[in-house]
């Protein structure tokens, strides 16, 4: 093979990696590395050391030791705080994944989070129920409210052909105003301007657990979130329901032909998506914070889209992706205090990740084309050589 041929025909190991059977892992990893590179450059431009910067995000999330700790806190407590943030992030991204698999974009996760957390707080969080009753009730109410909101969107889509992106966003604003109104009217803490905190019995946390001599708050949502991720993975891979949801997402017409009740599955998908968002809501507002700031939709409702896309729309992938995104968002305060960069850069880094993961399909396409072309040119060269050889023997016979 000449050098020229190598240049045209050679698809390197890199393209093969992105195109091959590990592409579902290789492509997202590549996207993450690219976005870290761009974010690093951004930090350099701002005059900061990117390695110190990234390390400080880890420190802020309790994944690396800080230089010094304030009274009563340590890496353990930071880590559990991080898990408290991770839980709703993972749940919310699972919510997006479920819709996404069924071909639906649930952009309304932030609204569903607020509404279900508000309902749970008002109904249970302000009552005197004991922990054994109130904690499960918070979870159930969160899931049910979220599911109802999701199902409503699914119904509008199926029955009236209302695009779910537009309807979920409208509902986000409506819920934001309604919840804001009720908090401001009836449940406001005059000093902080946010809602009255829910009771410690209802909060999805176990307070004051001594670990290594430091008092930690253990978030309960994380166990639920990880378990649900594995459950959903099983659901999509192994069950009839999962298969049908995927089928509806890929091609509703073919799904109907296959005998699937498309409308029912669409509504179920949105209900499940909403239920997960609702769980994310209670895990966030009753398991990380204990209050709701009125008229502010949680950023997490949008960050979870980045998580889901980074995780390739896969529940297990979401676990890794949500850890990554949570490190940035949760560690941003500490990073800001050590580096002196505005903490909003965390959202920007997540945004950049989102951007590159949206390009993931294109990277795969490029790699695929390169590999394909390399193979084509091999085939063509072979055909040419054969044709030439035939011509030679043909003439020889003459």
């Amino acid at each position, binding site marked *: 093979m000449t050098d020229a041929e190598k240049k045209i025909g050679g698809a390197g190991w890199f393209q093969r990696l992105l195109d091959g059977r590990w592409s579902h892992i290789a492509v997202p990893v590549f996207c993450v590395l690219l976005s870290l590179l761009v974010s690093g450059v951004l930090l350099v431009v701002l005059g900061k050391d990117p390695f110190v910067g990234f390390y400080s995000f880890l420190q802020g999330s309790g994944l690396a030791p800080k230089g010094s700790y304030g009274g009563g806190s340590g890496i353990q407590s930071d880590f559990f705080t991080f898990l408290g943030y991770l839980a709703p992030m993972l749940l919310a991204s699972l919510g997006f994944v479920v819709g996404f698999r069924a071909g639906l974009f649930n952009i309304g996760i932030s609204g569903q989070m607020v509404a279900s957390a508000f309902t749970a707080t008002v109904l249970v969080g302000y009552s005197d129920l004991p922990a054994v009753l109130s904690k499960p009730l918070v979870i159930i109410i969160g899931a049910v409210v979220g599911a109802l909101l999701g199902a409503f969107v699914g119904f509008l889509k199926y029955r009236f052909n209302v695009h779910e992106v537009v309807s979920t966003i409208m509902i986000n604003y409506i819920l934001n105003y309604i919840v804001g109104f009720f908090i401001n009217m009836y449940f406001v803490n005059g000093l902080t301007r946010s809602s009255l905190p829910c009771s410690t019995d209802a909060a999805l946390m176990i307070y004051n657990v001594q670990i290594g001599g430091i008092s930690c708050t253990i978030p309960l949502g994380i166990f639920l979130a990880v378990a649900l991720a594995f459950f959903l993975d099983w659901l999509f891979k192994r069950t009839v329901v999962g298969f049908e949801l995927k089928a509806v997402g890929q*091609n509703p017409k073919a799904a109907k032909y296959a005998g699937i009740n498309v409308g029912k599955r669409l509504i179920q998908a949105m209900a499940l998506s909403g239920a997960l968002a609702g769980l994310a809501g209670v895990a966030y507002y009753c398991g990380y914070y204990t209050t709701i700031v009125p008229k502010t939709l949680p950023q997490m409702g949008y960050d979870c889209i980045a998580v889901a896309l980074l995780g390739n729309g896969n529940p297990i992938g979401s676990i890794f992706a949500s850890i990554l995104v949570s490190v940035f968002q949760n560690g941003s305060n500490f990073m800001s205090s050590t580096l002196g960069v505005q903490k909003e850069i965390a959202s920007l880094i997540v945004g950049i990740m989102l951007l590159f993961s949206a390009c993931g399909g294109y990277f795969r396409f490029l790699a695929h084309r390169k590999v394909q072309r390399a193979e084509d040119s091999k085939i063509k060269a072979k055909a040419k050589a054969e044709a030439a050889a035939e011509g030679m023997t043909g003439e020889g016979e003459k």
Partner: protein
Amino acid sequence: MQDDYIIDMRHITKRFPGIVANDDVTLRVKKGEVFALLGENGAGKSTLMSVLFGMYQPDAGKIYLRGEEVKFDSSDDAVAAGIGMVHQHFKLVDNFTVAENIVMGVEPKKRLAGFLPCVDIKEANKRVKDISEQYGLAVNPTDMVGDLAVSQRQRVEILKMLYRNAEILIFDEPTAVLTPKEIEFLLDIIRGLRDQGKTIILITHKIEEIKKVADRCAILCRGKLVDVLDVASTSVQHMANLMVGREVKLETTKGEPHFGKEVLKVDHLTVRNADKFEVVQDVSLSIHEGEIFAVAGVAGNGQGELANTIAGMQDAYKGTVTLDGKDITSETVRNRVEDGVAYIPEDRQGMGVFMNLPLDENLALRRYYKEPFSKGGVLDHAKIREFADDLIERYDIRSGQGGRTITRSMSGGNQQKAIVAREIEQHARLLIFVQPTRGMDMGAIEHIHDQIIAERDRGAAVLLISLELDEVMQLADTIGVIYNGKLLKTAPASTMTSQEVGRYMMGVADND
């Protein structure tokens, strides 16, 4: 004389991954003749003309136009050199007028208020009217293209080329979508264009059309040029043999039918589309065990909707559908499948399979939810694979990685084989075949025809919907002709000639 030839393609070779579409083809076309290009699907006719039209670049070979070598990088270059092509799928904008469609890209301009450049739509209408009169292609420039019939749209496409001063006109399978009457009109138009000095290249696989209109004819078979013939002095059988590359069996052998009990009964069925237009009107038919009921008709006369409604994909507006005496008019698709309805839809890739799912899951699409393929809602992938492997072997479905092949990467013919295999394997009471052989080559067509007849002989009721009159005549025990959503005539196949059926297809009502 060399310069007699307006087109001279020399030693054209074009390869695609895995196949040689054109293998050293040399073709010369004279100015002012109708030159036909005959061959089966996949023989390389369209590729060759795409090379001439600049859509593909040849791997080897040269093209001379009016004696000078040309290299086209895109079809725009070919258009500039005076070549025009009427594609099989019309490239028209539905919500534009006829004139807008024709002039788009080279619009007449004027200045609004003296300085703002603006499309002069009045001038466009006038020019279109002029050309349409010059060539006898009647159209109304201000009609919306979306409202036009197929044959009129085709005229718009032809006018588009003439407006751009094309001298060489390539027609890609122009008659596939037309009624027999409309075909006659089109052939007249082609003769008229030739008489005005245009050079016509006609891509087709229908020999009788070549007989009617072409001067010379080139035959392609598996990418190679077989022969160039003078049409007037060559027999149809000879052309057919050359086209297929072997002796052709022009008839399908089929035993006498033995009708049993009534399986399907459609009673006064009316179907509306999304715009509340009645696309199927008051259709009644009945099909028995061991009967092939063929619905003949030109595309877009309600056949697709009729099949969809029987299969449960669309709702009936009025009337009933009965299967083995049971009213299934408002049953779900799944229940109909359970009751014994199998359906090979026209839209294979959009409806018949999931393109992004593996072949084995597509093959199991009718049974994945039942034991043994799933238990308690949990799928058993091993059982599904086993079932698929069996079908792949028995029905000779070819794919890269067997059952795990993503369906998108398979050829259209093998996707169709997979659908047919899956539906036949249902051992259904009623099989609905819609255009089962569209886009397939003759060998595969024979095979599918044999399978349809085997199903009939097994005792199933078969509803065959086809646009090919030949196919209807070959297979049908009973023929129903559909026109404008109405079943105009239903009669035993033995009592009807193809001329009669063709007349009904144009909407000519019964005299008696």
